[in-house]
């Protein structure tokens, strides 16, 4: 029997994977993927909790997150393209003009 706990654990595991990805990935694209994993892990949680409570607002939230994630990635990819055109690299370490 798969209970709420399982979903939540899955959600937390995915979230952690996302966090690790955010911390470790040096490729900008991969970084964006990691953030998507973050958001989607939360989605799983929301849907599961929503189902558990029989309350629709969780699912609503999930839909909004999907929408926001989509637009976010649109902006993100735009920026990535700009950067790639300018520098020919999508390595995070190339973003070090400003520091200190």
């Amino acid at each position, binding site marked *: 029997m798969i209970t709420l706990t399982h979903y939540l654990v899955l959600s937390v595991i995915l979230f952690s994977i996302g966090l690790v990805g955010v911390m470790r990935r040096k490729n900008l694209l991969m970084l964006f993927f990691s953030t998507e994993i973050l958001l989607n892990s939360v989605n799983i949680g929301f849907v599961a909790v929503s189902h558990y409570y029989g309350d629709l607002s969780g699912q609503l939230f999930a839909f909004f997150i999907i929408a926001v994630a989509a637009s976010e990635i649109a902006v993100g990819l735009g920026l990535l393209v700009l950067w790639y055109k300018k520098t020919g690299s999508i390595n995070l370490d190339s973003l070090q003009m400003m520091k*200190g």
Partner: protein
Amino acid sequence: MEQYLYIALFAPLVGSLVAALFAQSSKNIFTGIFTSTLIFISFVSSIILLYYVNANTIVNVEMMDWISAGNLSISFGFVVDQVSVIMMVTVTLVSTVVHVYSIGYMEHDESFNRFFSYLSAFVFSMMILVMSDNFLGLFIGWEGVGLCSWLLIGFWYKKTSASWAANEAFIMNRIADLGMLMGIFLIYWNIGSLQYDIVFASIVNLDIKIVSWIGIFLFIGAMGKSAQFPLHTWLADAMEGPTPVSALIHAATMVTAGVYLIVRAGEIYTLIPNVGMFIASLGAFVAVFAASMALVNRDLKRIIAYSTLSQLGYMFVAAGLGAYWIALFHLMTHAFFKSLLFLGAGNVMHAMNNELDIKKMGGLYKAMRPTAILMGIASVALAGIYPLAGFFSKDKILEVAFNDGSYILWAALFVGAGLTAFYSFRLIMLVFFGDKVHEKFGIVPHEAKPFVIYALTPLALLAIVAGFFEHSFYEFTTQLLADYKFTLDHSVVINLIFATSAIALSGIIFAVYKYIRGGFSEKIENWRIYKLLLNQYYIPKLYEVCIIKPFATLSRFAWLNIDNKIVDASVDMIAKTICSSGEKAREMQSGNLSSMLRWMVVGIIVLLVLAIFYRPMV
């Protein structure tokens, strides 16, 4: 009558200010004459006041308020009573003579006008000192004469030694002044007033301990001004000033201010005989101590300065033992003969082109007979030979010591009398008689101008006859001052007089005998005691090594090491620590996106950990 008081007081000030107007212009004989005239006017007023006081009218005026705060209220008040009028007459008389003398003495000096301005300012300060009717007014004069003394010792400011001596005098006096201030504070907080009459009226009600402290503090003040041991070194160095200054300030008037203070505060000291005994003992010690240094010194003015020091010791013995009128009497007679001696020495100096070493003089009698006679009179008076003034006053002091039963003091003074006679005549002999050593140096001595000599005659006259006024002086002053009761038998007194006269005479005769035959052999100069005396018991050296040098070193140390390296550096260190921690914290801002993201995650994790493990009391 008040107008005489004001004239006596302010005439010197007017003279000083007028002379000051010309201070920067070239020599103008007018300033000399003008100031001298004003001082003379002051003298005349003082004489008139003396006449009034003799008729038992004491003048007391409140000119205006000065300081008032809290319970304290001090005004410029002046009193002319038996003590102050004696001082006024003495001061103005000697001052007049010195002023006139100075016209001649300073005639070639480029700062002639400035000199008279200072000199008159000194007289003004001295008049305030003696005329004030309260302790703070006295303190004004006290510091005022200190200032003028500083100005006058350092008059030839181009000479480094002169300005050094001036500073030394001022600073030494300041040390003593602090003591005096403390005494004044103590009086104020116990009596609530600084007026003499109120203080003396209520001093008897105070605890004897407090009165003792008052006495001690005031005496510390007196020690500085009267150059008592251990604050005596400045007086000898003060001889750097022009000779009239030495005569007026460092012999006749200012240095006796300490004695004046003790006499004035006699009502305090009669309550505390222990302190009085201490004063007397110190006085006796200084009398011998200073006289011993005068024995070997070769500097004309310094010898006289030590002699002054020694005589001040005598006065303190009298004052300390409660014989105030005798102290005052000796103060007066001493003023006459000592200033005469100094002014004579000034003539000699002029004649010798400012040479001071008496070993380089000799045989001047021929060239400067009037001066020699005047100095001779002064020296005889100083030695205390009947019938000159010094005999009467000095002998009385020895009598007091004996009367008091302080035989040790008496013995010291007795020895001192012999030494005094010896060094006085050593000086006379070396300067005026014997070989004309100065010829070796190509100096042609010449006598001073006649008016200078004439100016000195009043002093000479007084040095001779002043002693005969002893009785009227006694009658006059004891109207105010406590009487001193002699309990000695007449025969004892006679014996004492003979003894004293004998030792004085033998001192003179020994000196004449010895120096007529060329003096002591050179060998004596290698004696340890001679060196000790010549170096003033190494006391200036001691001060130099133990106080002046360490003070300078400590000051530099405090500045460079404490202030700069500790206090300031610790302030800077705080700033630097903050800045360097900024530099450290800045490393967090690596600009690398990965590490920035990591910081965020780390932040979350740390907070999560805290959420689990940190449980404050809810």
